[in-house]
């Protein structure tokens, strides 16, 4: 075999590996779609989207996704409500205020927080945060949205802070110098010049964090409970889409039954939401990336 053919074969093989990733996406779409079709042939899509009850595992069956969506929304809102301000403050502080040495010491700690398995965060929520909340908020149940959301927030802080810090750090020095030259304080420079200049990167970090919170499973499965209730009271037990999939998977559900198909219907809802978020963030990244280069 001559050199040229060998080269071509190798290139082809490598390209195949790259193409494999497309196959994974197609596989996900195909699996979710084909199983959901079975589900929607028995449950109307109007019922699915409007019925306020989700009780596929009971004798009196209802298939309304709203309680699962509200549970997901509630825990995600609490998580992002915690992680966004804290993450951004840390990012601005580390990028604009902190000493170089302090930064290099703090970064590994953030990496540790990001590396801890989510099941461990679930344990933390259940055994530390929930009892703590119960000690001063009346009516907090053993499984509740607040504790799960807060812990998820802690989990997501490193993601927001490190991605936003990268964005802030990438803003050219000349902008800072110009602002300081006009007599601005660090606070004014940070929030009137640097943060707006890095806004696309910051936005991407937040969108990715939202996607992460929506898809997070173990923390909510452990600490938020398994009761699909249409409520926005954070003290109560709620069930998220992901926690429902876990609940069914742990039980003994026959393949091909309607109960089995519900996890794919729940899954496709989850996939569509995260798919849209991922593409928005990718688009923002591509669109605004080269602004300062």
């Amino acid at each position, binding site marked *: 075999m001559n050199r040229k053919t060998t080269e071509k074969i190798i290139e082809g093989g490598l390209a195949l590996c790259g193409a494999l990733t497309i196959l994974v996406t197609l*596989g996900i779409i195909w699996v979710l779609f084909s199983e959901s079709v079975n589900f929607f042939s028995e449950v109307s899509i109007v019922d699915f989207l409007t019925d306020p009850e989700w009780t596929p595992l009971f004798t009196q069956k209802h298939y309304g996704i709203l309680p699962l969506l509200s549970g997901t929304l509630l825990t995600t809102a609490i998580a992002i409500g915690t992680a966004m301000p804290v993450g951004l403050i840390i990012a601005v502080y580390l990028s604009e205020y902190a000493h170089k040495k302090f930064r290099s010491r703090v970064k590994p700690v953030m990496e540790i927080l990001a590396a801890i398995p989510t099941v461990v965060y679930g344990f933390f929520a259940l055994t530390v945060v929930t009892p703590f909340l119960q000690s001063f908020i009346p009516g907090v149940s053993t499984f509740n949205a607040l504790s799960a959301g807060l812990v998820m927030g802690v989990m997501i802080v490193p993601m927001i802070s490190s991605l936003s810090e990268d964005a802030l750090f990438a803003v050219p020095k000349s902008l800072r110098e110009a602002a300081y030259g006009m007599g601005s304080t660090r606070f004014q420079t940070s929030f009137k010049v640097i943060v707006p200049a890095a806004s696309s990167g910051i936005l991407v970090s937040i969108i990715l964090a939202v996607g992460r919170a929506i898809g997070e499973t173990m923390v909510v499965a452990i600490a938020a409970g398994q009761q699909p209730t249409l409520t926005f009271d954070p003290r109560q037990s709620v069930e998220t889409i992901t926690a429902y999939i876990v609940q069914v998977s742990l039980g003994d559900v026959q393949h091909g039954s309607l109960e089995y198909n519900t996890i794919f219907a729940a899954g496709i809802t989850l996939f569509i939401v995260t798919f849209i978020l991922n593409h928005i963030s990718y688009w923002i990244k591509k669109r605004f990336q080269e602004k300062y280069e």
Partner: protein
Amino acid sequence: MSNATVNRAIDLLFKYTGIFCTLSALVILAIFLINIVSEGLSRIDWQFISSLPSRKAERAGILTAWTGTVWILSLTAIISIPFGVSAGIYLEEYGRKNRLASIVEVNIANLAGVPSIIYGLLGLEIFVRILNFGGSLLAGSFTLALLILPIIIVATREALKAVPKTLREASYGIGATKWQTIWYQVLPAASGGILTGIILALSRAVGETAPLIVIGALAYVPFVPTNPMDEFTVMPMQIFNWISRPQHEFLVNGAAAIIILLLITFIMNGIAIYLRNKWQKKINW
């Protein structure tokens, strides 16, 4: 108060808020670790590590869980590394401008953001049912391999990007082909970075629970797996099982198992960070 004084006060206020937020992250991490160690450390002994699971909390151990984790870790590595690194090489070295590469790039960015539980649904349908692997180690490893593929690809690309052009040009200059240049020059130079990425990706796989629950990994496995088609449990599954029980003794077991799991995760991350620093120092071309 003049404007300048107010501004300076705000500036100072933000500085302390920043310090407070950063330190509270450290404090939470500390509370967290202290709590787990105080709950679980006394439970760890040889009996705990070498015992099979049991209905009685004080007799239960993590033998099946950690052997399952070692199996999953090795199989996932074997499956994901060749594909991930090859795809990374293709995207960075060959397909910079063509259409396939740009589609693959968007696709990888998207895959990296797909929730892990969705990979579980994919694995359940493809590996467990269609390929008929059942709830075996093989099905679990394939599922996790797909999950960490995007991470390995991105890490490979970053590492290859850091290798200077001059190295490639020198190799072409003495008559090497593109593949020879990549294989003999670029890959060895990028190996530190690629290895770092692989270890981080694998440490992510070790901590995953949700996709394995979905593909039907069992919480109670009364034997040590001996081949890839065996049913299995892993450390996070065992922990999840223990902490979902109401009895406090099982919670203690859970805390003890968490200490071991964190030890594994931190050691892997530590190796990765060490390699990265070493590699970054070396790479001052």
